[in-house]
């Protein structure tokens, strides 16, 4: 079945898999929980301390109101800024190297946005949506640098993933909300308020009743009330959006952090790498969802009715 050429590589794969599996088993037995199950002392090499989670970000410099999540956010802003600055300093018509890579990102984002929004509105949405995406993805990936959360100053960690601080997703959610409303007004003018306060059908029905056409008016009255109620619901849904934006990003990033911590506590070797890779993937997906939802709501806000 398997040619002679492939037999060697198959053997290598099997040996590697067995070795990794053995490492998983050994590290589980030697760790805190596993050694408790078989009733022996945990190995000092594998005895990771139990994960502690602090919901609020720590302040490494006690007097200054600077949290460690803010420092991480600055790092990712600086990294993004310098990447784009140095990548576009000597621009060439035929891009090479870093400029090529950056153009790839920008072009993919532009295609992603112009597909549902069209050329004109796409040009409005592009800066905000792309910035949100790049900021979240940078925050998520900066915190995956090995040893990132182990740097301590004054007994507090100096860095912590910026997305695990409730304030930063909340700030992004408020920015996204404000921009969506702004684009709505920019596209439709003052008549954008009709989305929220839709009294037109109700007035018409009342007019009909006052004129004397009771039968048509009564039917219209119900529709009018439904339209008013739907407008009020629209206000609610716009406001609740901010909450769901915030908790989606914050919850995903925090859950990822806790998951990796717990995995390192349970099985210190090999297995955490899988979850680590999954975290990199989820950071990308969450950033795409945040930017994509902003884009979707913005498209809904600027869309012409009928």
């Amino acid at each position, binding site marked *: 079945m398997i040619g002679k050429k492939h037999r060697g590589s198959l053997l290598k794969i099997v040996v590697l898999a067995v070795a990794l599996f053995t490492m998983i088993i050994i590290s589980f037995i030697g760790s805190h929980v596993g050694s408790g199950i078989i009733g022996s002392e945990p190995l000092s090499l594998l005895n990771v301390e139990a994960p502690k989670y602090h*919901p609020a970000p720590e302040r490494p410099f006690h007097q200054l109101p600077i949290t460690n999540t803010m420092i991480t956010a600055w790092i990712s802003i600086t990294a993004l800024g310098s990447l784009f600055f140095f990548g576009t300093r000597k621009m060439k018509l035929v891009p090479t190297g870093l400029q090529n890579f950056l153009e790839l990102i920008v072009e993919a984002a532009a295609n992603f946005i112009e597909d549902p929004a069209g050329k004109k509105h796409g040009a409005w949405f592009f800066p905000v949506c792309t910035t949100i995406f790049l900021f979240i993805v940078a925050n998520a990936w900066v915190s995956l640098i090995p040893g990132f959360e182990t740097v301590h100053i004054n007994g507090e960690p100096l860095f912590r993933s910026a997305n695990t601080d409730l304030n930063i997703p909340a700030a992004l959610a408020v920015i996204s909300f404000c921009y969506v409303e702004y684009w709505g007004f920019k596209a439709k003018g003052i008549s954008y308020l009709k989305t929220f306060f839709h009294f037109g059908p109700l007035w018409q029905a009342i007019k009909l009743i006052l004129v004397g056409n009771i039968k048509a008016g009564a039917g219209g009255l119900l529709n009018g009330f439904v339209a008013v109620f739907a407008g009020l619901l629209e206000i609610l849904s716009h406001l609740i959006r901010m909450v769901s934006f915030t908790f989606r990003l914050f919850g995903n990033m925090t859950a990822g952090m806790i998951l990796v911590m717990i995995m390192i506590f349970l099985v210190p070797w090999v297995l955490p790498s899988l979850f680590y890779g999954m975290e990199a993937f989820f950071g990308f997906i969450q950033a795409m969802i945040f930017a994509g939802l902003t884009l979707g709501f913005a498209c809904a806000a600027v869309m012409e009715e009928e």
Partner: protein
Amino acid sequence: METWTIVAKLIGAGLAIGLGAIGPGVGIGILGMGAMNALGRNPEARGAIMTNMILGIAFAEAVAIYALVIAILLIFVA
């Protein structure tokens, strides 16, 4: 803190994530089923199906994440 308060908190947190994970679990199952059906009908569209399935899964998963946030708040903050 009284013992019963701690007990109630832990039970509440466990129930929050346990019950909250039921719906998204079913939802992700249905999403996977839909994606497999689509893949069976049209194997060429593998890339598009994959992308949209992952997006849909992330949305369904967000609901479980809300429950997880409640559980975390119950244990660590409340």
